[in-house]
């Protein structure tokens, strides 16, 4: 079970969290201006790296906040966690 650093609550056990998929997949401010290819990419395509990955978690059984984590998917080492709106350190 991972120990996940919530940017609001500190280190907490994984079972308090829900996984939220790849981070920084931004929904366009005006989707009407996006072409079909771009919207399809936004809807369906995600990275699946072996190694460093920026991903979203929600402290569902805690403060309830979504936030981002930089985790190595191979070692599970978590290098950083940061709030929504902040950039990957």
């Amino acid at each position, binding site marked *: 079970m991972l120990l996940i650093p919530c940017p609001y609550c500190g280190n907490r056990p994984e079972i308090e969290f829900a996984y939220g998929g790849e981070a920084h997949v931004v929904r366009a401010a005006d989707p*009407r201006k*996006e072409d079909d290819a771009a919207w*399809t990419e936004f809807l369906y395509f995600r990275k699946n790296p072996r190694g460093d990955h920026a991903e979203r978690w929600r402290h569902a059984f805690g403060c309830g906040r979504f936030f981002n984590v930089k985790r190595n998917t191979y070692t599970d080492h978590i290098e950083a966690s940061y709030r929504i709106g902040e950039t990957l350190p």
Partner: protein
Amino acid sequence: MTQPYRLSAGGRIDRARTLTFSFDGKRYTGHPGDTLASALLANGVHLVGRSFKYHRPRGILTAGGEEPNALVGVGRDDAHFTPNLRATQVELYDGLTSESQNRAPSLERDYGAINDVFWRFFPAGFYYKTFMWPRKAWTKFFEPRIREMAGLGRSPQTPDAARYAQRFAHCDVLVVGAGPAGLAAALAAAKTGARVILCDEQSEAGGSLLAEPDAQIDGLPAAEWLKTALAQLAAYPQVKLLTRTTAFGYFPHNMIGLAQALTDHEGERSDAQPRGRLWQVRAKRVVIAAGAIERPLVFPDNDRPGIMLAEAARIYLERYGVLPGRRALIFTAHDGAYRTALALHRAGCAIAGIVDLRPNAGGPWVAAAQKAGLAIYPASTIATTDGRLRITGATIKPIAGGSGQRVSCDTLLMSGGFTPSVHLFSQSRGKLVFDATLDAFLPGAPAEACSVAGSAAGVPSLAEVLASGAEAGAAAAGGSAVSYQVTNAPVAQGGFIGAVPYHGDPGSVRAFLDYQNDVTAKDIALAMREGMKSVEHVKRFTTNGMATDQGKLSNMNALGIMSPVLGKPVPAIGTTTFRMPYTPVPFGYFAGYARGELFEPERRTAIHSWAEAQGAVFEDVSLWKRARYFPRGSEDMHKAVARECRAVRNGVGIFDASTLGKIEVVGPDAAEFLNRMYINAWTKLQPGKLRYGILLREDGFVIDDGVIGRITDTRFHVTTTTGGAARVLTMMEDYLQTEFPELNVWLTSTTEQYAVIAVQGPMARKVVAPLITGADISAEALPHMSMVECKIAGVPARLFRVSFTGELGFEINVPADYGRAVWEALMASGKPYDITPYGTETMHVLRAEKGYIIVGQETDGTVTPDDVGYAGMIGKAKPDFVGKRALARKAFAEQTNRKQLVGLLTDDPTLVLDEGAHIVADPAQPKPMTMLGHITSSYWSETLGRSVALALLRDGRARTGEQLYVPLATGNARVSVVAPVFYDPEGTRLNG
């Protein structure tokens, strides 16, 4: 004569008390402090099992958790029975009942032993090549036979009567293994004030010190030093010592799984206290002091009962006062076996000789053996052994060649040296490094905050073991190590990996490598001839290391065999992955408390107890229990539902809708937020009005629906489906926090704040109105799809004028604690109108008659609003909402034959179609037929006196009036396509 092999003194057993136990129905005696294995050996019993594949007689090989042969089933009855326990770890208690496995009818005469005669036909990988033909024989003949023959113990057929506990724990330092290294580590860490957990799989702490009669630590005999060390640890309040506790798994971020046996040793336990406890320990630092495991030597017929590891024999002698036999032959490549020989010799066991693979072994242990006059055969090997159910002798040959010499013995004790127990370290993904001088993989760079101490790190002498433990413990806790003075503990060295040279036709001998899976040296060679070059492939082809002992004894020898054949050094071959659990953990530990009613929450509404008292039949809807129908007298579901439906259509019914999800959406931007989430437009919805909302996923498909009420300009009461409550709130939070953080709006789940009571039917207002204060609920003041805050029976309520039945209806939201009382007040008020409680089944029928969809029934995650005929609800002027852009994609816009919601009427009005059945145009067409759609809802409509069905049908709306077919098990049903509303299509009844 009882316990003929028990010495009259020595060991850590309590001879003052005698315990009786049975093995395969035969009664024996032992003493407190014994394991089942030591007690059997004390009674001269070596034969304890039959091997997995060849059914060869097998004896006790080890004295610990690495035991591959002595697997037994223990338990007084089926409900307390555990198969596949290692007899070496089963503590003896009075009345213990045990049985051997994998034999029929008995250990001595086992039919399966026929496999051993035909062993040439069962080489490694035989099951990949045989049983392939004829195809049908697999299910009828091969599989049942193989299932009968294969496997280990029998599974109990009754539920486990034991309770199991679980516990989360945290510490600064977790020390795995309470041998000398672990004790020194725990002492050093505890001194700093750190929170320490020290665990050990054995019944008492001490590890190798429990069989150490010679060494002195700080001037004390080892056993005395152990006592003081344990006393010191016990004096620290922040130190927890857990014995009978196996660290079975190393999980990410220093989470270690421990399995603690609590009552297994206490005999016929009561089931009041838990049998075992699963610990999930989060440690800041871990010190692994798991010791080392002695390796067998791989030589022909090295698996007869009476053949045992040398250190195990010494443990049986020193700790349990048991002689393994009367005449022991030693076969070794390590000095430790000399120590065993000397100890046995002193205890009165004849030593038939010490056969040493090494040409010129020396050192203190060899010198002592020479001094004691023991016969030593250097540079020699064992070419074969004899004896059927017990070894009777062995043939010694010089490695250089020459004639063999048969020596008789009843015991053969072997040692190929020690393999550091790196399992946990490897599970933690720490790198292993091969040490050529030790012929062993040692812990290298760690991947977690852990270190390895003692023999697990390949440290040879007791003095160094203590020092490395103290150092690791101090480093883990940020303290300083103390040093220990050790005397009279000469270091023992040596070792060998691979198959020993044995002079003979390699095709005709069987030298066992993996005892539990019956893998021989020859199988490894065959695997490589077949082209397996990777150690992982060899493992899978031969099954070497894949048994429950996970290759604790066999992995290094397999590498030793592969290395010369591949012409690669061992580190270049690498080792297989060490997997959890270290030793098997009963399933009950993982289930823990989560059994029966504690398996998961059973959510009940505030009105549940009333429905239960009325004899309602409940169904599971997500975690909720919902009343499905309320049978009266001997009514079945069909009759009850028909009666409930009639009541709602003609009079009044009452329904518990409390499980509907509810979300309070509050803030100045509440309407804008809902605009962006739901397909509908919300800006113009006036306070006091309701609207039915549809929620899509971003890909454009319907995910939820519900009625939404505007309480004030800035406050909405959103309802969701019962199963979707948590999902919808999470989705809304996601958008709010990550995509629309600029909106000033907040979400609160109020699902459980309110009990929701639906009162539906032409008489509904007559029932509700007398209880209302503070509001006018007449048709003019409170039309369909409006709401009002008022009091009902004195309780504050949000009263919704809404209907999911097609009748005049109200949904009354009251604070949950008052739910049952308000329900009962409504029942009393409705008595003159014969108010009838109805359940979810009636609710489903009534809504289907009206063509109202149920998300998850009419939709399946691939259905758009237009597919179900709700395109008109889309707020056309809105620039954006979740799913809008996806629906506008060309692929959607140009798709012509999407499945659309339609109604179906069968030619035969009494026929109720199967939900899920397919629809075809021509039932006579060749198979596979072209499917046009499927039935989503199908019911007997009491109101209409006939069956009705909803379906998703390709291009369905354009097919209205067509006749199609639904192939059923009972024949092809002809159906007519109609609009998906069967009752009151104008909706006049809603406005009553």
